[in-house]
């Protein structure tokens, strides 16, 4: 026996709109959530920019290998931070998840909704972090080279800089999406009644 009803649908566009509304309405909170990722990405971008400038100037003391290790570690730390933030962000909204399930949301819809939001947050964090990092990488070398010299280097390597920004966006999006997946999955698996009953 069956009621013969079509499967509920939740289009990507609607998810995007809801996620966007959520980030916009809680902008300050979203920015704080993204802060961890902004710092990690900015550190990476600053170091890579600095290494680009030093390489082009043929400076004797370039960027050492251990500094790349530092970037790796900073990304791990920032992943920890963002996981924590996302855990709290999802926990805060378990009731809302219950509401979505009450009006027909599937588990997979809920997970996707949160992932879309994480990706938007990742773009925000990666974009801000990447730009800040490049600016910072420029500034820390001002005591060695003149502003004009470095400007020329950056202009000649504009494609690399764009690639660096894209890399920042990509890493940031991957990290936030990963950090959101586990708490979102867990919350989406609750029965609607449990989710509605949830107290935080």
């Amino acid at each position, binding site marked *: *026996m*069956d*009621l013969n*009803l*079509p*499967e*509920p*649908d*939740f*289009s990507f566009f*609607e998810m995007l709109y*809801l996620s966007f*509304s*959520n980030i*916009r*309405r*809680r902008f300050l909170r979203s920015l704080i959530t993204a802060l961890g990722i902004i710092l990690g990405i900015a550190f990476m971008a600053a170091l890579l920019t600095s290494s680009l400038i030093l390489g082009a100037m043929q400076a004797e003391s370039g960027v050492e290998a251990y500094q790349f290790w530092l970037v790796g570690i900073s990304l791990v730390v920032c992943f920890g931070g963002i996981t924590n933030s996302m855990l709290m962000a999802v926990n805060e909204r378990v*009731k*809302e998840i*219950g*509401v*979505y*399930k*009450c*009006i*027909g*949301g*599937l*588990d997979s819809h809920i997970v996707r909704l949160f992932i879309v939001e994480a990706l938007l947050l990742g773009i925000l964090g990666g974009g801000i972090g990447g730009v800040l990092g490049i600016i910072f990488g420029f500034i820390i070398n001002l005591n060695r080279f003149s502003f004009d010299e470095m400007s020329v280097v950056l202009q000649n390597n504009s494609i690399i800089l764009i690639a660096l920004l894209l890399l920042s966006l990509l890493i940031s999006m991957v990290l936030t999406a990963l950090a959101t997946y586990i708490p979102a999955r867990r919350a989406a698996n609750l*029965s*609607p*009644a*449990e989710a*509605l009953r949830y107290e935080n």
Partner: protein
Amino acid sequence: MSDETTIKMVDVWKTYQMGEEKVDALHGINLEITPGEFHCIMGPSGSGKTTFLNMVGALDVPTKGEVYFEGVPLSSLNKKQLASLRAYKVGFIFQTFNLVPVISALENVTLPLIFQKFSRKERRKRAETILERVGLEDRMHHTPDELSGGQQQRVAIARALAGKPSLILADEPTGNLDLKTGFQIVELLRELCHETGVTVINSTHDLKLIDLADKISWLRDGEITRTQKRLEVSISASNVTIPV
């Protein structure tokens, strides 16, 4: 399928595990609810009203027994089919309103229609019509935190009705409202029930609301002690005692 009953419950039990102890929230509920009925579940807090509604709305699974929705046993449906049932057939109204806080009243009402694959334009049109019906035409673009409790509950009613369900479950819809607003909300629910022919199950502990119900079931400690038509209840809203 026979549509003689919207809901038929046969010996439904729900047992919660509270640490070591087992607590029976529902003890063998048997109940039939016919289409178009405004049914009131009356009981004190802790009597199992929410658990009862969770079983009917397929939000939770009974420990024992079966709930039939328009003749279909809910235990025969998988997770996706249950989600479809909630999307197309059931509307929920809660004590705490439970609107999505970051979007406007209008967008909240369109939410169930997203799941039913309505186009953006159709969704908007239908949501506007319903919001006008519940008297919120000039508050549509406000977010929930800019609305009073009564207005939020009207939005919730509009959201529950938007998907044209056959059943609306209202879990203490007046619990967070003052008496007058609460009465208006239940009155509105009743009007809508009669206009659209949707079945309404309304849970409450407020005996003043019995005058609005077609049928009343008395729930005590997880058991329905009796179900009566309004006319058979020998009490009036001004002089109330609970029959045992």
